[in-house]
C-alpha cells in the first residue's frame, strides 16, 4: 500500500469511528430506545452484514472455495494429501511470514523455527515413537499448550529482533533459527538429537482417523481459511492499519503517539500463533519432527514460498506453497530429483530479479495490461480502470 492509500485508509477509518461515536446522540436522543427500535437496529445490522458480505465476496472467491471443498472428492489421495494438505500447511507457516513482511515490513526467517517449536512440543507433550521423552498427554492439552508456548517463543524472538531494523532483522532471525537447529541437533535429552521425534500423528477423533487424506485435507483447509480470514481482518483493523503505518514511516507514527515497538512485538505474537498452528499441522503431515525440519534450508524454504507467491496479499503464500510443492514433487520428472534445490533456487532468483511482488505481482501486471488494452477501445472502461488502479 502506498503512502497515499494508507493515508486514505487512515482517514476513512477515523471517519467511521467519528460516525460511530456520533450516532448514539443522533439516533437515541434521550431515553432508552423502545423494543421496536432495538429490533429495527438488529435488522439493520443484519442487512448491513449481508450487504458487506455481498460487497466483498466475488464470484472468484466462491469459485475457489467451491473448488477447494470439492477437490478431495475428485483428486486422488496422493494429490489430496501430498499436494493439497502439504501446500495448505506450508502456506499457513508462510502466511505468518508474509503478514510480518508485507504488513509489518519485518522479514523474519525464524517463523519456521516457531512452527518447529510447536511441532516439537506437540511431540514432547503428546505421543511419539520415543516414550522416554514424550509425556503422553491427551491431545486437547498437548496441542493448545504447544501452540501457546510456541507463540510465547515467537513473541520473544520478535522482542529480540525488533531492537534492530530492516536488513538486520533477517540476520538476527536467521541466527536465532540456525542456533535452534543446532540446539535440536545436539541435544538428546529433550529433542532426541539427529533422530528427532517420530510417529507424531493427529488424534483419532469422532471415529475418524484425521491422518487419512480426506479428513486431514479438510482439517488443513479449515485452519488455512481461518488464518487467511484472520489476517485479512487484522489488516483492516486499527491495529493492522497502525502496523502498516509503522512499516511506511516509523518515526512519524512514533510522533503521532503510537507505540512502535509494542505494535511490532504484537505483530510477532500474532504471526507466532499462525506459525504455531501451521507447525502443528505440518508436523502431523510429516508424522515426525527432526532438526532438519528447522534447518537453514527449511527456514529459507518458507521465505522462498512467501516471496514466490507474493507478500502483498494473504493469498500469495498459498499460491507460492502450491507452486513449491508441485515443483518438489514433479521436478523429478523434468530433472534429476537430486537437483530440486537448483530448480527452486533458480525459480526464486528469477522471481526476485524480475517480479519482486511474486506471482501476485505477475498477475497484477498481466491484469493491468489487459485492462489497459480494453480501456483503449472504450472510454467508459478507461474511467473504470483509472478508478480501479488507485485501490489495490
Amino acid at each position: 500500500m502506498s503512502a497515499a492509500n494508507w493515508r486514505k485508509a487512515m482517514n476513512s477509518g477515523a471517519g467511521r469511528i467519528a460516525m460511530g461515536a456520533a450516532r448514539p446522540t443522533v439516533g437515541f436522543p434521550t431515553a432508552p430506545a423502545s423494543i421496536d427500535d432495538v429490533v429495527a437496529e438488529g435488522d439493520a445490522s443484519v442487512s448491513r452484514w449481508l450487504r458487506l458480505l455481498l460487497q466483498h465476496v466475488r464470484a472468484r472467491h466462491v469459485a475457489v472455495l467451491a473448488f477447494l471443498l470439492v477437490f478431495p472428492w475428485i483428486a486422488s489421495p496422493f494429490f489430496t494429501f501430498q499436494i493439497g494438505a502439504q501446500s495448505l500447511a506450508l502456506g499457513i507457516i508462510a502466511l505468518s511470514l508474509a503478514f510480518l513482511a508485507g504488513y509489518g515490513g519485518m522479514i523474519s526467517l525464524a517463523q519456521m523455527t516457531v512452527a518447529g517449536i510447536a511441532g516439537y512440543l506437540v511431540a514432547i507433550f503428546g505421543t511419539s515413537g520415543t516414550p522416554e521423552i514424550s509425556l503422553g498427554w491427551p491431545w486437547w492439552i498437548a496441542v493448545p499448550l504447544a501452540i501457546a508456548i510456541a507463540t510465547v517463543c515467537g513473541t520473544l524472538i520478535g522482542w529480540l529482533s525488533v531492537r534492530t531494523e530492516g536488513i538486520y532483522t533477517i540476520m538476527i532471525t536467521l541466527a536465532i533459527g540456525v542456533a535452534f537447529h543446532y540446539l535440536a541437533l545436539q541435544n538428546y535429552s529433550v529433542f532426541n538429537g539427529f533422530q528427532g521425534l517420530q510417529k507424531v500423528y493427529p488424534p483419532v477423533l469422532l471415529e475418524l482417523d484425521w491422518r487419512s487424506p480426506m479428513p486431514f485435507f479438510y482439517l488443513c483447509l479449515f485452519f488455512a481459511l481461518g488464518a487467511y480470514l484472520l489476517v485479512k481482518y487484522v489488516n483492516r483493523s486499527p491495529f493492522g492499519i497502525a502496523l502498516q503505518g509503522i512499516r511506511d514511516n516509523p518515526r512519524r507514527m512514533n510522533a503521532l503517539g503510537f507505540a512502535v515497538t509494542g505494535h511490532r512485538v504484537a505483530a510477532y505474537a500474532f504471526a507466532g500463533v499462525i506459525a504455531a498452528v501451521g507447525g502443528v499441522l505440518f508436523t502431523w503431515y510429516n508424522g515426525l519432527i527432526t532438526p532438519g525440519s528447522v534447518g537453514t534450508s527449511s527456514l529459507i524454504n518458507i521465505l522462498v514460498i512467501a516471496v514466490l507467491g507474493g507478500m502483498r496479499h494473504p493469498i500469495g503464500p498459498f499460491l507460492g506453497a502450491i507452486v513449491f510443492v508441485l515443483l518438489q514433487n514433479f521436478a523429478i520428472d523434468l530433472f534429476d530429483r537430486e537437483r530440486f534445490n537448483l530448480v527452486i533456487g533458480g525459480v526464486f532468483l528469477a522471481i526476485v530479479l524480475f517480479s519482486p511482488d511474486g506471482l501476485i505481482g505477475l498477475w497484477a501486471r498481466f491484469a493491468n495490461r489487459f485492462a489497459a488494452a480494453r480501456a483503449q477501445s472504450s472510454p467508459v472502461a478507461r474511467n473504470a480502470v483509472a478508478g480501479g488502479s488507485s485501490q489495490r
Partner: protein
Amino acid sequence: MARSRKWLWWVAIGGPLVAFAIWALATNERLFLVTLLNGLTLGALYFIVASGFTLVFGLMRNVNLAHGSLYLLGGYVGFIVAERTEWWLPAVAAGIAAAALVGLAMQVAIFRRMPGEDLRQTMVTIGLSIVIADLLLWTFGAQVHQMDPPAWLAQPLRGLPLIGAYSSYRLSLLPLGIGIGVLLWLFLNRTRVGMMIRAGVDDRGMLAASGVNVNLVFAITFAIGAGLAGFGGVIGAVELSMVPGEDTRLLLASLVVVIVGGMGSVVGAAVGAAILGLAETFGLAYAPTYSVVFTFLILVLVLAFRPRGILGRPG
C-alpha cells in the same frame, strides 16, 4: 556515574569468567589451555571469514547471505589445486581468486542493477546461496573432503610448557589472523581506496557527489570481501573439513560475529570472532550438549543491552 556503571559491567561479566578460569585451571590445566588455544585459533578463522562479510555490509548495506557459499567454493577450489599441483600457496591463491571472481561477478551483474534496494539484494544472495550450494554438491558430492596442511606445518609442535604438543598448523592461524587484521586496518586507514571505503561507510551519497567512482569502490570492496571468504575456505578446508552444510555453519558464525561485534567494523569483527570462537570451544569442552546455547546466550545478551553490537556506533 557512567564510569561506575562500566565497572559494574566488567565485574558482572568478568567475575564469573575469572572464577571459571581459576576453577578450570585448578582442576585440569591442560584441558583449559588447549581449549583456550583451540578457541583463539577458531576465532582467527572466523575473523578472516567475517571481516569480509562486515566489510561488504558496512559499505554496501548488503547482507551477503551467499558468503558461506563463497567460503565453501574457495575451499573446494583450493583443495583441487592443491591435489593437482601438490603445492600449498597456489591453492591459497586459487581459492581467493575463485571466490573473489564470483563475488565480483555478483556485484557487477546483479547488485549494480538494483542500487539501494537492500532487501531485494539480500533475497538475491539467498537465491544465489541455494544455487551455489547445490552446484557444489553436484560437482563434489556429499563426501567429506579434507586438505593436508603444508609440509612445514604438518608436524605438531612439541615441548610446549604445560600442554605438551599442539598442532603447529592451528597455532599458525593465530598470527595469520592477527596479520590479516593488521593488513586490513592498514588498508582501510592508510590507503586511498581504504579512505574511500570508509567515506562510503559513513555517507555513500556524499562520496558519489565528490566525484568518486562509487561502482568501482563497491566492486573492489566486494572482491576483497569475497576473497577473504575464499581465503578462509582454504584455511578451513584443513582445519575443519569441507562437506555440504559447512557453508551454513560459517554463515551463521559470520552473522553472529558481526552482530556481536558491531556491524561494519573490522575491530568489532575481531572482538566478536574471539568471543564466538572461545564460547564454542569452551562450550564443546565443558558442556557438550548445550554448547550452542552459549552462543545464543551471548547473542541475546548483546542484543538486549547493546543492539548495535559491542563496538557498533549508535545509528
